C-alpha cells in the first residue's frame, strides 16, 4: 500500500472530471422535476448519449460533433418518454424504467462495432496565466470545455429558475398543473420542453463518460451514474447549487476509491467499488426527512379534463 502515490492536486482535478457526468445529468433532471415530471430514464438516456457521442466522434473525428449528437440522442430518447407520459398519459415511473431498459439495449446494439476503439482526443482549454497558478491552476483552469459547460449550466439553471418569467412558469407548472392550466399556460408543451432539455443534458453527461472520462466504449459503462444523478436531485432538494456540491461529493468518493484501489489498500476492490452506491443510500437516508421542497405535482399525470 502506498498512499503517497495519491497526488491531492490530481485527485481534485480528476474529481471535477468524475463529477461532470452526474452533474450534467442531474441538472437536466432537476429542470424536468421542477416542471413536475419524474423521469427515471436518466440512465438510459445517458448510455445512449454515451454511444451516440462516441460513434459520431469516431466517425467524424470531431468530439464537438460527438457531444452535439449525444445531446440530440438523449433528447430523442427523452422524446419517447414525453410521448408516453405527456401524450399517452402513461405512468411516469413505469415509462422511465422502460426508457432505461430500452436505452441499455439500444446502446449495446449501436455500440457493437465500437468496442475497443479510442475516440479522438478532446483538448482541454488551458486558460493562460491562470492555469499556471500552483494547485488551483490545474484544478480549475485547465479542464475541458464540457466541464465548464456543466458549471455554466448550473449557474444558468439557477438564474433562470430564480429570476426569469420562464423559470417562474416552469416552477408553477411543477407546483400545481391544474392552476397553471387554468391561468392559460400550456402545461404539456412546457413539460415536453423540460423533458427534452433533461434528455439532452443526460446525453451530454453520457458522452462525457465515453469521450473524456474513460475514454472508450464498453457496454453498460454508465454503471448507475444515471441513478446516482436522480438521487442527487433529491439530495439537492431541487436546488441547482446543491446539485453541484452533491456532484463533487460523489465525484470525490469515486475518484478516491479508484485511487485507493490503485494504491493497493487492503480493502478488497469490490468493497471499494461499492462505496459510491452505499454513500448514495446513506445520503438519501440523511436527507429524505425533508420532502417539503419537492415540486407538489411531481410524478402526477396531467389531463385537462374540462
Amino acid at each position, binding site marked *: 500500500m502506498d498512499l503517497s502515490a495519491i497526488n491531492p492536486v490530481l485527485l481534485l482535478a480528476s474529481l471535477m472530471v468524475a463529477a461532470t457526468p452526474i452533474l450534467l445529468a442531474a441538472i437536466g433532471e432537476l429542470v424536468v422535476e421542477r416542471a413536475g415530471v419524474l423521469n*427515471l430514464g436518466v440512465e438510459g438516456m445517458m448510455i445512449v448519449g454515451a454511444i451516440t457521442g462516441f460513434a459520431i466522434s469516431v466517425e467524424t473525428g470531431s468530439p464537438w460533433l460527438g457531444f452535439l449528437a449525444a445531446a440530440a440522442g438523449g433528447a430523442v430518447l427523452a422524446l*419517447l418518454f414525453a*410521448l*408516453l407520459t405527456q401524450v*399517452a*398519459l*402513461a*405512468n411516469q*415511473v*413505469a*415509462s422511465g*424504467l*422502460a426508457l432505461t*431498459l*430500452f*436505452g*441499455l*439495449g*439500444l446502446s*449495446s*446494439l449501436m455500440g*457493437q462495432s465500437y468496442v475497443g476503439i479510442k475516440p479522438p482526443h478532446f483538448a482541454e482549454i488551458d486558460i493562460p496565466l491562470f492555469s499556471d497558478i500552483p494547485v488551483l491552476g490545474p484544478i480549475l483552469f485547465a479542464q475541458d470545455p464540457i466541464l465548464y459547460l456543466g458549471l455554466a449550466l448550473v449557474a444558468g439553471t439557477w438564474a433562470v429558475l430564480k429570476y426569469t418569467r420562464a423559470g417562474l412558469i416552469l416552477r408553477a407548472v411543477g407546483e400545481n398543473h391544474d392552476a397553471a392550466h387554468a391561468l392559460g399556460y400550456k402545461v404539456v408543451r412546457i413539460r415536453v420542453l423540460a423533458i427534452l432539455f433533461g434528455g439532452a443534458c443526460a446525453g451530454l453527461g453520457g458522452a462525457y463518460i465515453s469521450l473524456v472520462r474513460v475514454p472508450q466504449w464498453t*457496454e453498460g459503462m454508465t*454503471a*448507475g451514474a444515471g*441513478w*446516482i444523478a*436522480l*438521487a442527487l436531485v*433529491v439530495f439537492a432538494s431541487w436546488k441547482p447549487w446543491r446539485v453541484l456540491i452533491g456532484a463533487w461529493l460523489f465525484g470525490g468518493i469515486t475518484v478516491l476509491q479508484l485511487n485507493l484501489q490503485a494504491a493497493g489498500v487492503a480493502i*478488497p476492490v*469490490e*468493497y471499494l*467499488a*461499492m462505496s459510491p*452506491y*452505499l454513500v*448514495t*443510500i446513506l445520503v*438519501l*437516508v440523511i436527507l*429524505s*426527512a425533508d*420532502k417539503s421542497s419537492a415540486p407538489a405535482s411531481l410524478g402526477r399525470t396531467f*389531463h*385537462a*379534463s*374540462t
Partner: protein
Amino acid sequence: MIALEKRPQPSQVWSVATPVIAVLATMVFGGILFAVLGKNPVEAIRTIFWEPLFGEHSFYYRPQLLVKGAPLVLIAIGLSLGFRAGIWNIGAEGQYIMGAIVGAGVGLAFYPMEAWFIFPLMVIAGALGGWVWAMIPAVLKVRFGTNEILVSLMLVYVAEQLLASMSLGLLKNPEGYGFPGSRNLQQYPSAHNADLIEGSGMHWGVVAAMIAVIFAYVLLNRHMRGFHIRLAGEAPRAARFAGVSPPRLILFCMGLSGALAGLAGLFEVSGPSGQISIDFNVGYGFTAIIVAFLGRLHPFGILLAGLLMALTYIGGDIAQSQMGLPAAAIQVFQGMLLFFLLAFDLLTNYRIRIGKAGVA
C-alpha cells in the same frame, strides 16, 4: 383535432387487448429494426417466436421455456404486488443475486455431506437472502421516507460487487484451479435442484412459480390484504381511511417480492446455472419488470407474459447463432414491447375522439 376523453370506468376489453396489440406492434417495429440490421425480418420473427416451439429442435427448446420462464414469473409476481400498491421495488436483480449467494453458501457449507435437509435449508436461506436485501429499502422507506426506487437499485450494484467478491473469494471453488466461481452444485446431489422429470425443464423453481401465481391470485382476489394492496395503489388516501397501515404494506410487499426474487436466484444457482460466478446474473430481475407490466400486474397474465419473454430469450439465442442477430437486438426488442404496452394502455382508460376540439 384528436382529443382524449376519460372513460367512466376502465375498459375490460382493452385491458386484455392492449398486451396483444403491443406484442403485434413490437413484432412489426422489431421486424423493421432487424431489417435495418440487414436481417430478413420475417425470418427473424419466425426464428424467435416459432422455432423454439415448433421448429426442428423444439424438443430441446421447449423445456428451456420453463427454465427461463420460471425465474421471470417468480420475480414478476412479487414485483407486481408492490407495483399494484405503488411500491416500486426495482432492485429484484440484487435480491436475486443475494438469494443465490446465501442459498448456495448454505449448501456449500455442508459440502460434501449428503442429507435430505440440505436443499430445503438452501431454499429457506435463498428466500431469506432476497428478503433481507429487499428489507433494506423497505425499512429505510418506512423509517426515513427514503425513496425505495433509488435505494433498491443502488443495492443491485452493491450485490453485483458482492457477487464478484464471493466468486473470487469466500465461495471460490478450492479445487477450481484458481478459476473464479464456486463449486458446481449440479455435482453435489444434496444441493442440486435437478429436473423433477428428467429432461422436462421442470425443476423446483417451476413448481414454486406456479404456486406463486396461484397464491397471488387468491391474495388479490379473495383476501383483504390483497384488496388493501390494490386500494393503496389506486387511492392511497382511501386506503388509509380504510385502515391500511402504509408501513406494514411496504414491509409486506417489499419483503415478499424480495423473498420471491431470492428464491428465483436460489433455484437458478442450484439448478440450471449450477455455480456462483461473476456473470451469474443475466438481468432476469429487470426483465421481470417488463413481464409484470406485460402481464398487466395480473397473476395469470404474468404467467403468460413470462413464458412469452422466455420465448424471446430462447428465440433470440437461436437467431443469434443461426442468423447472427446481435444479442442486444433482443434486449431492444423487449424494451420496445414495454414501450408499446405503456402507450396502448391509454386505450384502457381513455377514449380517443377525433373531431372538434373540446379543450383550448
